[in-house]
C-alpha cells in the first residue's frame, strides 16, 4: 500500500513538470508576448488609424494590470498608409526582423490580401484581421488567417431574411459599390433570398470614383421598388439617402453596417431624411443613450480617458479596438504557457461563447476548428431621427 502510494507520488511529481512545460515560438518568452500590426495612420483611410491606437491603449492597460499570465504585451504597430506594398514591407519587418509571435488586426481588405499568402506560407497567424470580407473564414485553404467582425455576406443574409419575413411581396432595388466589398454583400443578399431572388427588380452599381450616385437613385426609384438595399460607403450612403428622400421615393431602406455613423453619414444626409432606416449592429454605440449608464461602457469611457485621452468618445471605432483587444486577451489567456504560433491559432479557433462586454447583449464570440468567423450574430436596429433603436432578437450565428 505504502509502495503504491510512493509510486503514485513519484508519477505525479514526474507528470507535473511535463504539464507545466513552457513552449515558445519566436516573439514569446517568460516576460513578453510580441504582437505585430499595420494600420493606416496616414493616407486616404487614416480615419481607421484610431483602431490601431485604441488597441495599443488597451494593451497598455493590460500591461498596467500585470499583463496576461504574467507576460507583458509588446504591441508593435507600423503605418502602411493603406498601401498594400507597404503592408507587405511592414509585415515582413514584423515577422522577420521584430520576430513577432503573430500579426493582429492588420487593417484593410487589399492590405490583408497582399500578405495573405505570405503569412500562410510562413505559418505566422494573421489574427482577427480588420476587414469584413468573407474570404478570411477559410480554415481549410488558409489555416493561419482569421477574421473577427461579422462578415458582409452574413449581414446581407440577415437583411434578406428580414425582408422575406416582414414584406414577402417586396420589390427590391439594390445599390452597391462595384468592388469586392459591394459584391460580397450582393452575394450574401442573393444567397439569403435563395429561391426568392426574383424579388430583386433592379441592381445598380457605382464606382468609388463617381462624384455622386444621384442618377443611380433615380433609376432605382423608376423601377417601382418598395425596398431599397443600400450597400455603400459613407459618402455615397449620405448622398443616396438624401436623393431618395428629395425625389419623393419612400421605400423601406436597409443601410449596410459600414455606413451607420450618425455623425458621419446621417447628419450630412439629413436626420429627418434618415428616419426609418434599418441596419444591424454588434457593438455598443458610444453615443447611444441606452448605454449611458451601462457598466461596460462606463468602464470603456474611463479607459479612454486614462489610456487614450486624444481619442474620440463618440467614435465607435474606439469601441471596436477595445472589444477586439478583449477577444485576443481571452485567446492569450487560454494559451497559458504554450505560446507557439500553432497553439495561438488553435486557441483562437476554440473560443466558446465568449462574452465581450462592449458587444451588444446576446452577441457572443464563438469559433471552432471549421469556423474562423468569431462574431456572427447581430441585431437589427431602426433610426428614429435621433438615434438607432434596436429591436427584435439577436440574429445569425448560433
Amino acid at each position, binding site marked *: 500500500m505504502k509502495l503504491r502510494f510512493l509510486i503514485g507520488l513519484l508519477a505525479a511529481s514526474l507528470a507535473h513538470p511535463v504539464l507545466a512545460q513552457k513552449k515558445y515560438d519566436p516573439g514569446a518568452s517568460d516576460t513578453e508576448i510580441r504582437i505585430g500590426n499595420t494600420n493606416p*495612420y*496616414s*493616407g*486616404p483611410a487614416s480615419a481607421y488609424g484610431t483602431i490601431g491606437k485604441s488597441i495599443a491603449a488597451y494593451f497598455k492597460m493590460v500591461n498596467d494590470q500585470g499583463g496576461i499570465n504574467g507576460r507583458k504585451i509588446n504591441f508593435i*504597430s*507600423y*503605418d502602411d*498608409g*493603406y*498601401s*498594400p*506594398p507597404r503592408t*507587405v*514591407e511592414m509585415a*515582413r*519587418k514584423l515577422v*522577420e*526582423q521584430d520576430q513577432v509571435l503573430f500579426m493582429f488586426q492588420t487593417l484593410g*481588405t*487589399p492590405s490583408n*490580401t*497582399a500578405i*495573405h*499568402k*505570405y503569412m500562410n506560407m510562413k505559418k505566422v497567424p494573421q489574427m482577427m484581421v480588420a476587414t469584413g470580407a468573407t474570404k478570411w473564414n477559410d480554415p481549410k485553404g488558409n489555416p493561419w488567417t482569421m477574421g473577427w467582425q461579422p462578415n458582409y455576406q452574413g449581414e446581407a443574409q440577415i437583411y434578406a431574411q428580414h425582408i422575406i419575413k416582414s414584406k414577402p411581396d417586396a420589390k427590391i432595388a439594390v445599390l452597391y459599390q*462595384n*468592388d*469586392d*466589398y459591394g459584391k460580397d454583400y450582393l452575394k450574401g443578399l442573393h444567397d439569403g433570398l435563395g429561391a426568392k431572388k426574383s424579388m430583386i427588380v433592379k441592381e445598380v452599381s457605382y*464606382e*468609388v*470614383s463617381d462624384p455622386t450616385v444621384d442618377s443611380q437613385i433615380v433609376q432605382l426609384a423608376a423601377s417601382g421598388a418598395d425596398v431599397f438595399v443600400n450597400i455603400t460607403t459613407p459618402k455615397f450612403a449620405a448622398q443616396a439617402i438624401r436623393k431618395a428622400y428629395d425625389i419623393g421615393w419612400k421605400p423601406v431602406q436597409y443601410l449596410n453596417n459600414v455606413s451607420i455613423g450618425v455623425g458621419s453619414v446621417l447628419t450630412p444626409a439629413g436626420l429627418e431624411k434618415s428616419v426609418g432606416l434599418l441596419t444591424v449592429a454588434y457593438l455598443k454605440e458610444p453615443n447611444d443613450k441606452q448605454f449611458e449608464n451601462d457598466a461596460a461602457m462606463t468602464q470603456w469611457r474611463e479607459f479612454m480617458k486614462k489610456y487614450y485621452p486624444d481619442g474620440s468618445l463618440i467614435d465607435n471605432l474606439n469601441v471596436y479596438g477595445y472589444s477586439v483587444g478583449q477577444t485576443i486577451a481571452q485567446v492569450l489567456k487560454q494559451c497559458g504557457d504554450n505560446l507557439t504560433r500553432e497553439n495561438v491559432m488553435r486557441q483562437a479557433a476554440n473560443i466558446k461563447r465568449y462574452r465581450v462586454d462592449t458587444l451588444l447583449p446576446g452577441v457572443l464570440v464563438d469559433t471552432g476548428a471549421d469556423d474562423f468567423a468569431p462574431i456572427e450574430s447581430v441585431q437589427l436596429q431602426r433610426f428614429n431621427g435621433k438615434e438607432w433603436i434596436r429591436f427584435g432578437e439577436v440574429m445569425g450565428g448560433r
Partner: protein
Amino acid sequence: MKRNIFLIFLLLAVACALPFLVSNYRTFQLTLVLVYAIALLGLNILTGYSGQISLGHGAFYALGAYCAAILMDKAGVPYWATLPAAGAVCFVAGFLFGLPALRLEGLYLALATFALGVAMPQLLKYHHLEKWTGGVQGIVIPKPEAPLGLPVNADQWLYFFTLFVTLVMFVLGWNLLRGRVGRALTAIRDHAIAAEAMGVHNALYKSTAFGVSALYTGVAGALGAIAVQFVAPDSFNIFLSIVFLVGIVVGGLASISGALYGALFIQFVPNIADEISKAAPWAVFGIFMIGFVYLMPTGVAGAVRLLLARRRTP
C-alpha cells in the same frame, strides 16, 4: 576616371556582399531600392535631362507591374520574360502619350501627366478589365526561386536578379545620355528653339524621351510587382508619382547616380519618419525633405560631386 571606375567596382562588390550580411527583410528592402532606382532613372531622363515635368510616372510603374502580374498569372510566363514585355508596352504607351503631350509645356504637361496618374488606379478597377486585372482584389503572384540549385534563398536570388537588371539599365542609360541623344535632350531643355535651329528634331526627341522614360519605369514596376508578389490598384495612387518626383529632386536632377540616392531616400526616410513620430510621420518626412533641399540644392549627387572635387583640389 580611373578612380571613378575603382569606386564603381567597390560599390558593386559591396552590393554583392550585402545580402549575405543582412537579414532577408533588409535584402527585400534593398531590392526595392534597386527597383526605385530604375524608376527614378527613367523619370530623370524625362524630367532631369529633357526638362519635362511628369507627375504621372506612377501610372507607367503600375502599367509595368500589371503587365508582369497578368503575364505570370494568366499566361504562365516566367518572371524574367515579363520584363521586356512590360518595358515594350510602357515604351509604346509612353511614346503615344508623349505625342499629344508635346504641345504642352511646363506646368501644363505636369497637369496632363497628373491626370494620367490620378486616373490609373480607377482605370485598373474598371469592371470590363476585371477579368485580367482582378479588380480591386488585385493579383497575387508567386515568388521566383533561385534556379539551378544556387545556394541562395528566394529573397537573395531576387536581389541579385534585380541588381543585374539595374546594372544593365544603368549602363544603357549612361550610354544613351552621355552621347548625342543626351546632348540633344539637354539642349531642348535649356533652349528649345536654339536646339531646333541646330537641327535637333524636337518632337521626335521629346516623345522618344517620354517613351524611354516610361520603359524604365515600366521595367521597375514589373520588378517591383515580382518583389512584392502582389499588385492592386491601391498600390499605385497619385502619391507614388509624387514620391518619384521627390526622389529625383533629392537625389539630383540630370544625374545618373542621383537615381540611386533618391531611391535610398524614398525607401528609407518614410520608415525613419514613422519611427520618429507615429502621429505625424509625413510632417517629419517634410522636414527631412526641406533639409535636403536646403543643404544640397543640387541633390545628393551634386553634393557628392562637390565634395569629391574639393578633395581633389586642396
